[in-house]
């Protein structure tokens, strides 16, 4: 049997993580530079995990994530800035708007496969960007400025935990298994009574809603959002996190998001070479570790024991059985 980490252990670990960062922030031990990066890690985890739901779990190939994020960010910004309504409502509306976008993209593009779907969704993201630039209500090309800065560590933390829990619960359910079946063999999945249209759209909608959540958080942390930030390069960044962590692995997405965000934070100190090194690392990781750091595996009790076994020099894989 596949054992999950004991729930108590996970809760203690999460609480400790929360407390350490909270104390670090309020005592000023964590500099504002790293504070920004911690928030960014949180937002990136949400983005990577939700893209992984579409690309890794369901096996679709979407490159529209920046677009979904933009929809969430602007919808949320409109709620708090233009309408002066509370932040919580911004989250709800941002997620709903992005989910709706996911539905609108998901339904017509369902017939497309692989690279065709990829380019169509990428196109959708770019269309969103251009449309935003031409809507004066959301500031046109200048975007929204002066969005209330309400995002703090507890909000980020709760959002990340919510996202991970939501996706995990989904994967470990019959509906999640349907998505996995779809990825593995869509013809056989149909023969098992699975409505593949329904599940493809569902993956798009849930993934988009969570990207929308990330967008709302982003807007209410940076307070300024411009359409041009949400271009296809942002989607590539998220895809890279998913790939580096391991396609299909939820914990891998977390690892990937943390690694990539931290790496680019460190590289900030050498601005001229930053992107060159980043790009070289990307190529190297793809060439030498094409399955990503975790492959499709999850960090679970078995895997930890296995690693422990390797570290102790004994054959951990046997113990884990």
């Amino acid at each position, binding site marked *: *049997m*596949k054992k999950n980490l004991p729930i108590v252990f996970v809760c203690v670990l999460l609480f400790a993580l929360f407390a350490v960062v909270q104390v670090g922030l309020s005592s000023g031990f964590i500099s504002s530079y790293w504070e920004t990066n911690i928030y960014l890690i949180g937002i990136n985890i949400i983005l990577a995990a939700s893209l992984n739901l579409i690309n890794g779990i369901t096996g679709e190939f979407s490159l529209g994530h920046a677009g979904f994020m933009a929809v969430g960010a602007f919808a949320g910004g409109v709620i708090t800035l233009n309408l002066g309504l509370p932040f919580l409502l911004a989250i709800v509306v941002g997620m709903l708007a992005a989910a709706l976008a996911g539905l609108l993209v998901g339904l017509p593009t369902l017939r497309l496969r692989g690279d065709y779907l990829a380019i169509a969704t990428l196109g959708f993201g770019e269309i969103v960007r251009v449309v935003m630039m031409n809507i004066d209500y959301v500031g046109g090309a200048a975007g929204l400025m002066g969005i209330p800065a309400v995002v703090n560590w507890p909000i980020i933390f709760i959002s990340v935990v919510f996202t991970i829990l*939501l996706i995990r*619960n*989904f994967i470990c*359910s*019959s*509906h*999640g*298994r*349907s998505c*996995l*079946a779809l990825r*593995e*063999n869509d*013809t*056989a*999945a*149909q*023969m*098992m*009574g*699975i*409505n*593949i249209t329904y599940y493809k759209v569902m993956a798009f909608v849930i993934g988009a809603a969570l990207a929308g959540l990330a967008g709302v958080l982003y807007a209410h942390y940076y307070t300024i959002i411009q359409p041009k930030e949400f271009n296809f390069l942002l989607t590539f960044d998220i895809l890279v996190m998913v790939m580096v962590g391991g396609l299909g692995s939820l914990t891998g997405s977390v690892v990937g998001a943390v690694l990539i965000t931290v790496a680019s934070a460190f590289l900030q100190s050498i601005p001229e070479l930053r992107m060159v090194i980043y790009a070289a690392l990307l190529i190297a990781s793809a060439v030498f570790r094409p399955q990503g750091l975790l492959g*499709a595996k999850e960090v679970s009790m078995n895997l930890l024991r296995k690693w422990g076994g390797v570290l102790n020099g004994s054959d951990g894989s046997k113990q884990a059985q």
Partner: protein
Amino acid sequence: MALMEVNKLSKAFGGLVALNNFNLQVEAAELVGLIGPNGAGKTTVFNILTGLYRPTSGSLVFDGHDLYGKHPHQITKMGMARTFQNIRLFDNLSVLDNIKIAYQAVINYGLLPVFFRVPPFYRVEEQIEEKSLKLLEIFDLKKLAQEKAKNLPYGEQRRLEITRALATNPKLLLLDEPAAGMNPNETSDLLDLIKWIKDKFNLSIILIEHDMSLVMRLCERVIVLDYGSIIAEGPPSEIQQNPKVIEAYLGDEEVASWEK
């Protein structure tokens, strides 16, 4: 009334007629063989029955339901299941998950329990797991429950595919060349297995097979397809004597295996 009734079914791909005026009746608990040379249109019949292809013309009624225009997943839920010529398992998932996925055609829960783990979730999940393990045990696959499907030996992959099809609780099972790639021992095991399944699960079976010895020993009735049309139909003993059938197969290696 017959369980499955197909009338004047035709299918053309562009200008190529893959199936022409195909008629079929399957009674409850009947085992029908579908044979014919390569490219005769046998798998096309399966693909139309299961909703993967839409027929160009003709009618299909299964268990009182009109199948025309129905999606594969709907047809599965009406009680039809199939296996594939080239095995199609969920390769990277465990044997147990392969079966669990099939079970959700029978028992499932809504979306709410997925995100918020309310009691129905655990109850139904437990049920699915219990039934899946039981089914695996029946087919002697329980010890492999945690293996990835792609790591199973060939014969066991075939068996898993049949098991998975049965998990959807079918009334009619379509087997597409289940003996392909098997040695004589495995084929004879398969023969017993199919007989046993038919009785134990009380279902009708349509069998596409190239191994004539298997077809002749198993099937109560055989339909022979050639170039998309039925050229003969009847009990195995008659089919063996039918000059049209012999002609269709002439030169084909299958003829030799008839003598077995």
